[in-house]
């Protein structure tokens, strides 16, 4: 009795490909005087049911009907003639199948005028992998000699099945390898022992600018190695093949490569040796690290700029102290000593005059020191936060300025300082370079409160250089905090500095 529809996948999963079966079954029907031959294999993954994977028959209409029934029948293991042979592993011969009521296709066989039936197992190293059955159009007594031949045939078919399975597995592995190669983000370039390219994946095509067709067969050194390194590459390969001592195999190295248009770029390269059929091949995995190198260089440059800016700030403070308060205090000391001596000499009037000068100088010195200290780090920022510090900054601005919407909350000290000095720089630039008449300052947090957004806009001359010392230094300072600075300063006027600083503490 059929237990289900014939799954279309069964034939595709066959251990012996159906083409080979069809040819074999056709030979049996034509040469051994059997009218119909069918091959069965497990239809399910658990091997609990069998399906017909090939069927060959003469052209008579009745036979075609039986063949159709056979092709669409699923048999449980142990069921019907194929099921019994699959389960028992031994050939079986029915002199007249139409007399056996247990056979699911008995009626169909009768209609087709089929009588004798014989089935033999297809055996491989894994055991029984299928069954072949034959039908004759007349009753036929068991033929021991034929049974031996069929048993042998079953074993041969089993070997064929094994070989086919191995080939399919190998083919699948190759397909997987090819797919991996195609999808790889890294370039994969394989060369033979002569240094000629035998494999060039799509990433290599994109990176180096050659198609696989152009690359395969050419010497790899000539293709992707910069000219001055080619001879070294060739010598290395020759030496390795002669002495067998690798220097760069299986290591990650950084080196320069060259594109089809001659452009050179840094790559990370790993070369591994693979042996296929005794011939060594060398596979290079190449990764374009231009972006990484650029980022590293920019990081180094920004670190150097930050250190230089800190040194410059120290030099400026030293200069300001030297030129300002220090000179004031020197003058005070000299004047005080002079006043003392005038008093000692009884010249009270000159002493008084000198002391008045000392008093005025002290006031100036104090104011200069206060201004200097504020420039280093304003105390009001430390004590009161951004809002009062910015109000104070704006009050002292040389250009009329307004500040709006400063959040009252406190932020990490480094964030507050970066925001403060961004605005201070904007105000100074507006006065010194842009000749602005008005500056607007706005400070707010973004929607989810993760970022402090600062904008300083002036109505001055525009054309500010974002790469200039002051703005570059600000951008570096913000970058250290994970923030960014953008400068919009068209030549026809107006400058907007916009800083964003992550502020979640």
């Amino acid at each position, binding site marked *: 009795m059929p237990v289900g529809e014939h799954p279309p996948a069964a034939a595709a999963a066959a251990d012996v490909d159906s083409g080979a079966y069809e040819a074999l079954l056709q030979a049996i029907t034509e040469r051994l005087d059997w009218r119909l031959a069918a091959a069965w294999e497990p239809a399910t993954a658990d091997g609990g049911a069998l399906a017909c994977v090939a069927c060959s028959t003469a052209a008579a209409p009745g036979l075609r009907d039986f063949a159709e029934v056979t092709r669409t029948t699923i048999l449980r293991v142990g069921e019907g003639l194929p099921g019994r042979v699959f389960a028992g592993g031994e050939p079986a011969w029915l002199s007249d199948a139409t007399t056996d009521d247990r056979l699911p296709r008995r009626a169909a066989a009768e209609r087709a005028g089929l009588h004798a039936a014989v089935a033999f197992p297809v055996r491989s190293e894994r055991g029984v992998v299928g069954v072949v059955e034959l039908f004759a159009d007349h009753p036929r007594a068991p033929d021991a000699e034929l049974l031996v031949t069929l048993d042998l045939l079953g074993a041969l078919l089993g070997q064929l099945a094994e070989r086919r399975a191995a080939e399919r597995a190998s083919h699948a592995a190759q397909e997987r390898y090819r797919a991996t190669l195609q999808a790889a983000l890294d370039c994969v370039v394989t060369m033979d022992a002569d240094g000629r390219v035998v494999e060039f994946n799509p990433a290599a095509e994109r990176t180096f600018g050659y198609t696989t067709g152009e690359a395969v067969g050419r010497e790899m050194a000539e293709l992707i190695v910069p000219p001055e390194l080619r001879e070294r590459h060739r010598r290395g390969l020759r030496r390795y093949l002669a002495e067998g001592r690798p220097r760069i195999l299986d290591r990650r190295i950084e080196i320069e490569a060259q594109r089809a248009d001659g452009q050179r770029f840094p790559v990370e390269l790993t070369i591994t040796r693979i042996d296929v059929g005794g011939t060594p091949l060398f596979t290079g995995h190449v990764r374009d690290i231009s972006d990484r190198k650029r980022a590293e260089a920019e990081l180094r440059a920004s670190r150097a700029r930050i250190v230089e800016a800190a040194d410059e700030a120290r030099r400026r403070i030293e200069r300001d102290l*030297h*030129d300002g308060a*220090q*000179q*004031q*205090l*020197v*003058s005070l*000391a*000299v*004047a005080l*000593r*002079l006043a003392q*001596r*005038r008093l000692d000499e009884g010249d009270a009037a000159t002493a008084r005059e000198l002391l008045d000068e000392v008093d005025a100088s002290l006031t100036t010195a104090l104011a200069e020191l206060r201004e200097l200290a504020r420039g280093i780090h304003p105390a009001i920022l430390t004590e009161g936060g951004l809002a009062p510090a910015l109000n104070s900054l704006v009050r002292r601005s040389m250009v009329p300025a307004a500040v709006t919407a400063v959040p009252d909350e406190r932020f990490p000290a480094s964030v507050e300082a970066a925001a403060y000095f961004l605005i201070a720089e904007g105000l100074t630039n507006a006065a010194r370079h842009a000749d602005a008449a008005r500056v607007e300052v706005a400070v707010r947090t973004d929607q989810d409160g993760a970022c402090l957004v600062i904008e300083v806009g002036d109505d001055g001359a525009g054309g500010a250089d974002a790469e200039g010392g002051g703005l570059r230094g600000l951008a570096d300072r913000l970058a250290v905090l994970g923030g960014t600075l953008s400068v919009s300063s068209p030549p026809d006027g107006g400058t907007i500095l916009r800083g964003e600083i992550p502020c979640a503490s």
Partner: protein
Amino acid sequence: MPGSVLIVDDHPRFRATARRALECDGWTVVGEAQDGVAGLAEAQRLAPDLVLLDIGLPDISGLVVAQRLAAQSPAVAVVLVSTQDAGDFAELAAAHGAKGFLAKADLSGPALDGLLSR
């Protein structure tokens, strides 16, 4: 003995202070210069008894100016001054042909006399 003096310093406030202090003590300030090149030229032109010379000049180091003055006008006494204290520069001043070194805050007629009489 007080005589004529040329003051070479880039800070106008110090030049004024020095002029006042030295004049009070009987020195005659014959000229002022604000950098090394002008100082050398004025020293040659005015031939003062003393050049009061700042170390931190904007164009050439005062030490170099002292060395050139010693070669150019050996009769002129040079006293180097700085806002730094004497410990830092006294030896250097001597090595560059100067008569001595004074911290600016210690400047007075008697202090100069002390240095010059050594």
